[in-house]
Every structure is written in C-alpha cells, then in structure tokens.
C-alpha cells in the first residue's frame, strides 16, 4: 500500500470550501483522512491550490477500436487525467460501433490500465443507424448507463419514443436509471452542412446548418420525455433557442439534463473564416448571441455539465478541404482552463459543472464527484488557479493535435490528479 497526502490545499466540494490535507491510499482507493498536518508515503504539494472531486467528462471520443491513429484509450485517458478527469464517458462511434456486448467488453478490458475510468456509452440503435434498438439490457449488465447515437441524431420520433420507453424499463430492471443522450440535429435541415448557417457561411460559400436543425430535435425530445417520463440528456447544446427550451422544460419538472462544450461557449462561426478545418465541428460553432445564451445557461443552472466533446483527428484528416474534413476538436486537456479563463463563474460552480453534476448524469456518483470525506472514493483533482499557460498542441498528451485553442493564453491548470487513490498526474505531468 502506498499512501499519498495532498498537502496544504483548500478543499472545494458540494458542501463548500475549507482547508485541510487529504490522505488517500492506492489499495482501497479511498480517502483515509481529511484534516491538518497529515503524513503519508508520498506528499503532493497543494499550497495555493484547490482540491476538488475528480472531473467527469460526459462526452469524449477515444477512437478505440477503429481509429487508433487519432487516439487510443491509453492516450485519451492520459489526456483526460492531465485535464483533471477521473472518469470519461466514451462515445460509441468507434469502428466497430459500441452496439454490442462484445465491443463494450473489449473497451472495458483495454481500459483496465487506463489513467481514468472509461465509461463506455452504448449506441441507442444498431450501427447508430436509427433503425433497430441496440441490446440495451446486455450493455446495461456491463455497466453502461448512457446510450447515444452521438454523431447522429435519432431522426425518427417513433423510434426515439420506443427507445426511451425501453430504456425506462431496462433501467428499472437493472436498478439504475439509464439515460438516452441525444446529438440534436435534424438531418433534413443540415444536409451538406459544414458550419453554422448564417451570414458567415453565406459569405464563405459553405453549406450551413441552421440553429433550427438542433432546436427542432430539442423540442421533439422534450415532448418525448414528457410522453414517456424517461430522462433525456442533451449533448453539446449550442443555440440560444435550445437553452431557452431546456430552461422551460426543467421549470416544468421534466427529467431533462444538458451539457455544453468549452468551444461552444467560447468560439463563434467567424472562426471558420480562414477555412481551417480545425474549427469545423458538429454541432457547429454558432453566433456570439448563442455563446452568450449558453453562458447564461451555465450561470443559471439550466446547463448541467461542461463536457469536452473531445474529438481527436489525425493531421491528415484535418488537412483536407473544409467540406471534406471531419468535424471535431480536442477538449480534455483545455476544458478546465478555458472554463476558468472564459466564464465569469465562482470556482465552486465551475467544479460542479465538471464534477458532481456530470457524475450524477453518468450514474457514477457513487465513485466520482463525491464529497471529500474519509471513506469516500479517492478520485480527486488539484487545481492551481494562478498558473498562466499557452496551449501548445505539441505538448498535449492526446495523440492528436487538433485543438482550436492553440496559441491561446489560459489561466488555471490541473496540478495533480488522483484516480483510485493513486496519482495519475503530478505537477502537470502524467505519472505513466
């Protein structure tokens, strides 16, 4: 057994802020003690830092199996650890897709040595094609709690209704609620689109996707959640209209949750003006009014979580013509710093958006995003809010380099990360 003391930091969790050392051990994976002047085999300096529950990313593409040239579970989990994440929900659009117990089992097996917990999400439909249900019960038996066809929205309302109803039943059967997470995009309004439809796309001569492509599906799924009583989680929302609808649905008591990504609360469609596919992402970067609305949604609690949308692509893939290149950008290693730099929110609120609130949505609140108390799982993030740094794609742990924040000066960084009682990151460097 090796014990580690996180020494001299300020603790922030859902019960507030206080001073104290935190002693953890790597065998039980638990917090042994919280208090002044603790001793352990290893001491991590946390002076001037905040010690928080580990972060949970609801939305990352780890690319394994199928596109290991862009990312692997190992490299993606290292990027996650460096970003302060102790758990990451892996999107199912791998190749083969995570629509069967065998693929999910394989991911779980590979992830045993990862630097964070990898939570495979299951596809809602076989092949993410929106036609026939994936074996949700089999996947739920393996621990899958989030189902999504991410990258594709479920187009057929009747199919989505059945998926919700069935997920509701299986959730009861396994004794843990399942959540269907929707990539909101009405395909009929976004055929051939590469960016937000608006003044910029019209000028650039690039096919656009109107805000309404997203909003129609948000509207529909709010109605379907009302009809079925089953939870719906909205992935990477981007528009003012979507935020307003989610706010109203929550006020009406519906079981709706929503996430946004750092790039969608920071960047706008004008970033596409140079035709650099680095800024191509789906859903697309929207307007400054949308960015303001999304930030307001984060501030007032309408939005439950900051999710990274981490989508690695090889340089070759991103060096194609704008309309041929795949959408997506990195996020795991910059999410916290972008949030601290860009959002005018109290640190505790930012941590909640990255930690205990997404942990609850992912169904892992028993082990991530927990209060920092003796006996609780030792998944922790230590944040140095004062570090100023410049994003250098070459320094990222991710196998890919497609960050939209290259060259940007950010404030605040993850100093240490503790996963299952052992450091995965010490002084900003991954331990393995």
């Amino acid at each position, binding site marked *: 057994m090796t014990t580690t003391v996180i020494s001299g930091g300020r603790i922030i969790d859902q019960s507030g802020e206080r001073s104290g050392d935190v002693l953890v051990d790597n065998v039980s994976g638990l917090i042994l003690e919280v208090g002044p002047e603790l001793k352990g085999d290893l001491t991590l300096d946390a002076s001037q830092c905040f010690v928080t529950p580990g972060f949970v990313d609801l939305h990352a593409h780890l690319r394994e199996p199928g596109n290991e040239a862009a990312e692997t579970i190992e490299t993606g989990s290292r990027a996650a650890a460096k970003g302060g994440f102790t758990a990451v929900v892996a999107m199912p659009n791998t190749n083969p897709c995570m629509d069967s117990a065998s693929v999910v089992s394989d991911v779980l097996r590979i992830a045993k040595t990862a630097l964070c917990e990898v939570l495979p999400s299951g596809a809602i439909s076989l092949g993410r094609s929106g036609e026939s249900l994936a074996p949700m019960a089999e996947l739920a038996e393996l621990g899958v709690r989030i189902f999504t066809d991410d990258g594709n929205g479920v187009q057929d309302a009747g199919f989505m209704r059945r998926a919700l109803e069935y997920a509701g039943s299986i959730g009861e059967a396994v004794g843990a609620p399942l959540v269907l997470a929707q990539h909101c995009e009405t395909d009929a309004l976004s055929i051939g689109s590469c960016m937000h439809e*608006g*003044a910029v*796309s*019209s000028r650039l001569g690039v096919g656009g996707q*109107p805000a309404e492509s997203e909003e129609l599906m948000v509207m529909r799924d709010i109605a379907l959640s009302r009809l079925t009583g089953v939870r719906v989680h909205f992935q990477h929302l981007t528009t003012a209209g979507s935020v307003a609808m989610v706010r109203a649905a929550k006020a009406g008591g519906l079981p709706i949750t929503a996430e946004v990504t750092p790039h969608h609360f920071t960047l706008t469609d004008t970033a596409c003006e140079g035709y650099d596919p680095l800024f191509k992402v789906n859903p697309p970067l929207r307007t400054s009014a949308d960015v303001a609305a999304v930030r307001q949604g984060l501030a007032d609690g309408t939005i439950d979580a900051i999710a990274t949308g981490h989508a690695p692509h090889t340089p070759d893939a991103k060096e194609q*013509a704008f*309309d041929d290149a795949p959408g997506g950008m990195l996020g795991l290693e910059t999410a916290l710093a972008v949030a601290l730099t860009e959002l005018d929110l109290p640190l505790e609120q930012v941590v909640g958006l990255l930690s205990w609130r997404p942990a609850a949505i992912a169904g892992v609140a028993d082990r991530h995003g927990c209060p920092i108390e003796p006996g609780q799982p030792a998944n922790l993030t230590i944040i140095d809010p004062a570090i100023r740094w410049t994003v250098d794609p070459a320094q990222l742990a991710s196998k890919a380099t497609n960050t939209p924040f290259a060259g940007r000066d950010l404030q605040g960084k993850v100093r240490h990360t503790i996963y299952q009682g052992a450091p995965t990151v010490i002084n900003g460097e991954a331990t393995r």
Partner: protein
Amino acid sequence: MRHLLSTHELDRADIEELIELARGFAEVQTRDVRKVPALRGKTVVMAFFEDSTRTRTSFDLAAKRLSADVINFSASASSVKKGESIRDTIETLSAMEIDAIVVRHRSSGVPQQITQWTDASIINAGDGWHAHPTQALLDSYTLLERFGSLDGKHVALCGDINHSRVARSNVDAFTKLGATVTLVAPSTLLPRNLEGWPVRVESKLDNVIGDIDVAYMLRIQQERLTDSPFPTLREYRSNYGLTVERAAKMRPDAVVMHPGPMNRGVEIDPEVAGQENSLVLQQVANGIPVRMAVLFSTLGPGRFDAVPELADSVGEAK
C-alpha cells in the same frame, strides 16, 4: 500582389489597375505575334482539381502568351485519383520550383488553404461556391469596355446565387466599381443570410427587366435540381428565364451576360444568347488579357506599382 484568392482583397483602385493592365495585353492580342516575353522563365501550374474547359483554356493561353512555361495538372489524370492529399499534391508540385499555381477546386476555401503549403503564388480559378475572381475581373472589364463606367449602372444577377462563386465575386466587384446589384432568384436559390451584402433582392425578373443595364444570367446546374429548389425547369424559365419576350422589355442599350456554359432554353433563350446586345463571346475573349494581367501582377517584375512601365515593356516586346 502575391496571390489572387478572391476579389475581397482588391479595392476599386486595384480592380481598375488590373483592368488597365489587361487593356495593354488586349492590344497585344491584335498583333500578328500575340506573345510577349513578360513571364519568360516563369512556370505556372494549372491545378484543376475540378473539370473546367473555358477557364482552364483561358488561363493556359494567357500564361503562354506571356511566355511562361505551363504545366497542366488535372485531378482525373493524377495521383489525386489514387488518394493523394491536396497538401501532398501541392508540396510535390512546389518541389519542382514553380512560380504560380492556378487552382480550381470544388470546395470553397481550398486556394486559401493551399497558401500554407507552398511559396508559389496562388491564383484562384474558382473554389466551390466561394469565389471566381478572374471571372469577376473579366466581367468587369467587359462591362467597362461597353459602358466606360459602372457608376450608377444597374446589374441584375439572376439564377442560382447560393451555389455560385461567380455571383459572390461579381456582387463584390460590380458594387466596388459603383454599380447597383439586384439579385433575382427564388429564395431557395439565394444565400440564406444576406447580411452585409450590398444588394437588393427581387423574386421576379419582370420586376426589374425594364430598369436594368445588365442582365447577368447564371447557369442552372442540373445536379442541383435533386434538392428541388423549384418545381420544374418550365416554371423556372417562366419566372426567371431571359426569354425572347422578356428580353424585348430590356432598355435598348442594356446588355446580356452569361458566364457559360449556357443551358439554352432554361435560363436564357437561344435567340437571346445570340442577340447583338449579348456580350457572352466578348466575356470569353476578354478572359485572356484579364488573366494575363493577373498572372503578370502576381509573377511579373512590375506587380502593381509598376503598371505605368508596362506599356513600355509590352511595347518592347514587339
């Protein structure tokens, strides 16, 4: 000028200067020997990732009449077919010490992207729906040749504006030269957001036909019809086609233009295309001196600031 990516980098004076330069080269075209040594020793690559007949031929002739060495490269005959990336293709071409790449690509923005991967000058010969600056320059040249000035002139651009690089570049060039531009199209063929566009919009050609100085008709691309932007070609023609009857309502000094290739009987009646006030063939002819001017401005010793000396250098070449 290092590159010509779109008309947006050009102001009115730049456009007028290029056109003035083109006039000098047009004079060369009337001689027995239609060639000047202005770009002798320079190498120009025609990188046409998308098929083109007239633009490619026009650039080819323009470069040759400036005595440049010309390499033709077409995607259908090249390693692009074998999966080579644009970057690899450009870097491979650049390794051969070339001076300019004339680029045509079906995707908007490719000429701009390419500038990162080569030291050669990039000349946009049409990218996606975005820009076709030499078309705009030759159209401006053609109109100035006819009217002397575009100040106060009214141009109707009619047809599939949204998918048209010609329309985007011409709106920019014509308005910079002082013209009023009206887009005439059903909204299914218009860009979805015209914020910042210095244009008027009309949904029926008849509403402007008697007021305009120029009817600029755009090609209806058959492959766009799968989106069903209008019910039938017949219905399109009846509202937006430059029919014989409609052309008869034009002012006597008004002209007809089309960037080609034409769909006769759809956006323009064959009789109208052949009328005395149709500038379609002048547009094609003017493409050569205009592209000579663009090549000379990007590759020649003079570039913009040496335009006055051009007359001499052209003269010496006799």
